[in-house]
Each structure stands twice: as structure tokens, then as C-alpha cells.
């Protein structure tokens, strides 16, 4: 038993030594002192900032099959009324987010997130930027949130979001038309 543990430790040390040597030799080796990776800084602050769209700019994207309009509000608010063609991003259901977002974003070039306020949408959009593997995805928020959209008089609708309708816990059911 001791021999097994000793040999296991030796193999691990051999791997560590090989890793250290390789990292030291290669030109793109990383700093070992534990700082955050450079790519992480780029990803959150530089590489892909979240755009801010006015209701008119967002409205111009509606109907484009490559654009996803995502509602980040509560399911109840979504049921009361939402941007026409929007899907409810189930932020209140972490398991749903993990499984649903890759499918929702598949084939999309742009996602416009809106909430009750700009800040609410920004928090969700930042998460999308950090966690999405499609680095070319354009992520934007609707400035002023859903109230600004309503105020501008653009299309509002209700009805079950196809993704949410499959999950009764997230989507309580269809509501009447809301303008």
C-alpha cells in the first residue's frame, strides 16, 4: 500500500516537474504566481463590452432571425407583457440557465437583453458575456428597460415563450394579449 502511494506521488511530482519545465521553456508560458489570467481581464472589460441600444435601435433588430430578444425580468412580469418576439431568460432558475442558454443562443449573432431597468439587464448581459463560449456574439441591453420600450410605443405581446412553455415551473402559462 505504501509502495502504491509512493509511486503515485512520484508520478505526480514527475508531472509537476515536466509541467514546470515545459512552461518555462515555451514562449507563451503563463506566470505561476496565481494572478488572474490575462484573457479573463480582456474578456470582462475589453474584448466584448455590452452595447446599449435605445428602443428605436432595438426595434430595428426585431424580426431578424439572427437576433434574440431576451427578457430578464420575473416570469410574472413576462406574463403581463413583453417585447414582441422576446423569450424569457429564466434567470430565476439556475438549472434552466445552464441547460437552456446554449440552445437559445445557437445560430444567433446578437442577443438584446432587457429588464425592468437598464442595470437589471446589464447584470444579466455581463453574465452572458462571461459565460458564453461564442466569443463573436454581440450582446446588448435595452436602455431604459421594458418601460422605455412601452413608452416608445413599440410592439408588445404576450403568449408562451416556446422555451419557457416546456417548463411549467418557469413559465406559469399563457396570458392574454397585452398592449
Amino acid at each position: 500500500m505504501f509502495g502504491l502511494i509512493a509511486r503515485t506521488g512520484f508520478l505526480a511530482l514527475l508531472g509537476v516537474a515536466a509541467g514546470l519545465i515545459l512552461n518555462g521553456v515555451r514562449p507563451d508560458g503563463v506566470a505561476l504566481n496565481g494572478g488572474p489570467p490575462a484573457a479573463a481581464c480582456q474578456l470582462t472589460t475589453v474584448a466584448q463590452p455590452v452595447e446599449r441600444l435605445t428602443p428605436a435601435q432595438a426595434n430595428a433588430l426585431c424580426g431578424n432571425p439572427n437576433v434574440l430578444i431576451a427578457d430578464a425580468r420575473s416570469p410574472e412580469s413576462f406574463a403581463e407583457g413583453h417585447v414582441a418576439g422576446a423569450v424569457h431568460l429564466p434567470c430565476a432558475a439556475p438549472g434552466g440557465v445552464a441547460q437552456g442558454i446554449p440552445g437559445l443562443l445557437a445560430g444567433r449573432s446578437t442577443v438584446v437583453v432587457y429588464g425592468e431597468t437598464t442595470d437589471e439587464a446589464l447584470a444579466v448581459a455581463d453574465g452572458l458575456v462571461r459565460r458564453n463560449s461564442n466569443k463573436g456574439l454581440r450582446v446588448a441591453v435595452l436602455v431604459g428597460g421594458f418601460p422605455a420600450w412601452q413608452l416608445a410605443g413599440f410592439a408588445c405581446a404576450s403568449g408562451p415563450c416556446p422555451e419557457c412553455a416546456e417548463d411549467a415551473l418557469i413559465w406559469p402559462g399563457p396570458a392574454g394579449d397585452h398592449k
Partner: protein
Amino acid sequence: MKWLLLLLRLVLGGLFILAGVLKLHDPSKFALEISNYQLISTGTTAMAALLPAIEIVSGAALIVLPQAWRRAAALLILLMVMMFSVAVSSAYFRGINIDCGCFGGAASPITWLTLVRNAGLLLVSLFCVVFDRPAPRPFTASPSPFRA
């Protein structure tokens, strides 16, 4: 049993060599993938530099070294798979939508299939640790002093 063990050793060892080589390709990206798990705040770059080499060494040892060392390699792989499984399960059940990072740049979101695959790897490595041991020596009784 012998051939099954050989097959499992080749598959498991080959998989770890492949995973290690793919992760070696871009250590900065791998460090980012580790930090995306939000489990450790420091040491991600060191882990990104060392883990692929440990995977390659253990995978190669599982395939080419003598039996005693193969068991050690299988135990090391078992420990690594346990660590990976904890990380992946944690991300899955916290609803963190990130790439697995299991095979370097190959984008693969964490799903329940990732958990099943890890459970399979756990079983295979455990199998190698338990059954890749020398065959027991046949019992040979010493000559009886009472035999005529």
C-alpha cells in the same frame, strides 16, 4: 479479464494523453476555463501549467510502464477524475453556464452527459486500480515432514 484491462488501460491512458496535449495548446485559455468554475481565486495559472503535464505523464504511465507503476498511474488518474467530477458537478448544480474545459479548446458546455462521462471514467480508473495487480501465486505446500 486481461484483455479487458488492457483495453481499458489503452482507452483511459489515451484519453488522458489527448486531454493533456489539447490543454497544453493554450495555457492562458485553460487558466481562464479553470477560473470560470469560480472555485479557486488564485493558482489557476499554476494549475493550467501543471495539470496537462500530470495528465500526460499519468496517461503514458498507465499504458507503457510495468504493472506496479500502472496501478499508481491509475490511482493518480482516479484522484484527478474525482477532482474534475467535484468541479463539474459544482458548476452544473450551481447553474454556471461555462465550457467544461475538459479537452482544451474544444468547446463543450457542461451538461448531465458530462457528469455521466466523468462517472464512467471514475469507474474505469477504479477498475484499473483494483484489478491491475499481479496474479496470485499458486499455493505450493512445503514438503510434509510426515510424508514417507
